[in-house]
């Protein structure tokens, strides 16, 4: 009897490939302010994220975005009109053109993000490149689970790396 697997030959073939290239709209100060409000609610956000006069007095020399800020929410500049992945099916295979099972669930398993000293600032345009790092299967309470690791590399308009994030998604039937 063949061993059960959730990894199709097309999926295995796609490991290591880049599969999404996106560019953000220029970051607005209001994007940073709103992000910070959501992060610090119900406390007011730190002045660094909304008060230019205060921010100029810090080591950063002006308003910067919190490190975890996402400039790709609410549509991307390129591809034009792209609203981002479907949150019901944030599956690399859909962009890689690889046949995959019809999973019932997508669960965040973890992430590790490393930041450079280059901060995101108002006016910056960020480019993201996503790649499929690999798959791992493990038995679980809900049956066989597929762990998918992706890597997301962000650079700014000057080609400076801003951050690198590896994330793991759990899926099952």
């Amino acid at each position: 009897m063949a061993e059960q697997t959730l990894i199709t030959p097309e999926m295995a073939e796609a490991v290591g490939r880049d599969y999404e290239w996106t560019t953000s709209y220029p970051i607005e100060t209001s994007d940073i302010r709103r992000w910070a409000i959501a992060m610090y609610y119900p406390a007011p956000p730190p002045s660094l994220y909304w008060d230019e006069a205060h921010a100029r007095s810090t080591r950063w020399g002006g308003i910067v975005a919190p490190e975890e800020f996402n400039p790709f929410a609410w549509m991307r500049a390129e591809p034009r009109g792209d609203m981002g992945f479907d949150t019901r099916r944030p599956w690399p295979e859909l962009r890689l053109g690889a046949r995959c099972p019809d999973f019932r669930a997508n669960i965040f398993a973890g992430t590790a993000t490393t930041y450079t000293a280059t901060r995101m600032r108002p006016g910056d345009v960020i480019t993201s490149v996503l790649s499929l790092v690999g798959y791992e299967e493990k038995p679980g309470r809900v049956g066989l689970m597929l762990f998918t690791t992706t890597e997301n590399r962000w650079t700014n308009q000057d080609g400076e790396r801003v951050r690198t994030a590896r994330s793991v998604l759990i899926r099952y039937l």
Partner: protein
Amino acid sequence: MIDLTTLRPGLEIPTISRPGDYQYWNRYAAVNYEFAGHHMDDAAAQHEGFEAAIGMGPFIHALLHVLLREWAGEDVARVIHVGLRSRRPWLRGRTLIQGGTVTAVREAAGERFVSLDVWGDDDTGERLFTGEAEIAFPAGSLPPP
């Protein structure tokens, strides 16, 4: 703001907490465009095998940055690395508590690097995740290690 005289391995940093309810989750959803059904609707989460709606993993990860900056000071320190491995979901109705412990302090290239183990529990004491983090201060801003 950090107490400069206490920066050493073993130091536990002040915790932060967030109730697991839509007042908090929807604010994050609104800025991150993150509207998956299992974050917004108990029934959708139950279909996937959870007891109730679950908090967003990226929000939990983002809050670790807040934990670090609330302690270190965002005007001075910078976050270098934040990693987490999820163990259990953050269920609606449960309060998330995050904390960390300094594991190492080193100095290089004009900066003071501080490594930490970080964690998140809910208000019943269940461990939701473990992880690791690193931040850096300008070396001149702190006393010698």
